[in-house]
């Protein structure tokens, strides 16, 4: 399937690289990878690097919102970075830039 999540540890955080398209067929994979990232790693900060995420729809957004809530209830923080312009537009339209912390670069997301 045209989607993958790669997780690496860096400094005090884990970085999840979302690559490809979040569509109906790949939603389950996003959910399970992120639940794993939240529960299996001790790191308090999770950064979603979306530089290679090319598509997301309203269902995918719903999942990201759910992941944000799960992160918070696990006492962790979730940052996002490197959104492609079209993806950023989707976030802006749906007011997600109000609830997600979005950074231009991975470095800034790690620092903040």
């Amino acid at each position, binding site marked *: 399937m045209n989607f993958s999540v790669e997780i690496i540890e860096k400094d005090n955080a884990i970085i999840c690289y979302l690559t490809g398209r979040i569509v*109906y*067929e790949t939603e389950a994979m996003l959910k399970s990878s992120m639940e794993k990232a939240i529960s299996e790693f001790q790191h308090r900060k999770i950064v979603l690097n979306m530089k290679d995420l090319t*598509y997301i*729809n309203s269902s995918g957004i719903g999942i990201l*919102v759910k992941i944000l809530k799960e992160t918070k209830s696990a006492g962790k923080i979730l940052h996002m970075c490197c959104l492609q312009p079209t993806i950023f537009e989707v976030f802006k339209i749906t007011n*997600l830039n109000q609830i997600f912390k979005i950074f231009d670069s991975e470095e800034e997301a790690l620092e903040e």
Partner: protein
Amino acid sequence: MIVFQNLSRLIIPSDKEMIDIIVGKVVESINELYKVVSDLVTGEDNLDSISSIGFGLSLAIDEALKNSIEHGNLNDKTKLIQLEYYIDPKKIRIKVTDQGKGFDYKFIESKNIDPESESGRGILLIKNFMDEVSWNESGNEITMIKYRKPASRGVKR
């Protein structure tokens, strides 16, 4: 003067697993048709290219199909969805019809979306990426229109 109009109609089952492939093929087909349009009618292509509107177009069709399957046909795979796309040099018109009882689009339109909600953003996205959005009286058919505008040369929107 050459007139170009193309109307295509697909009848598909209410299966969410089909959405992505259908959306991909329809946008590809619209793209192909526009190559013909630009060769025959508009000459030098001075209108928005499909690649610049492709993301929003895909998203709008995706959301409309998903709504019809989920809220119209209630995920009943024996019920059908009709997807119609019409193009001429100036516009793309997409119509999605389901076999459901129709939904209360007036209510949806007036609803404010809580940023923390896990659903309810489909219509909002459609309205932002398309130029005109309307429903039939019973609410089981959505019509979405995207006009092709003169290409903005090097000017950021």
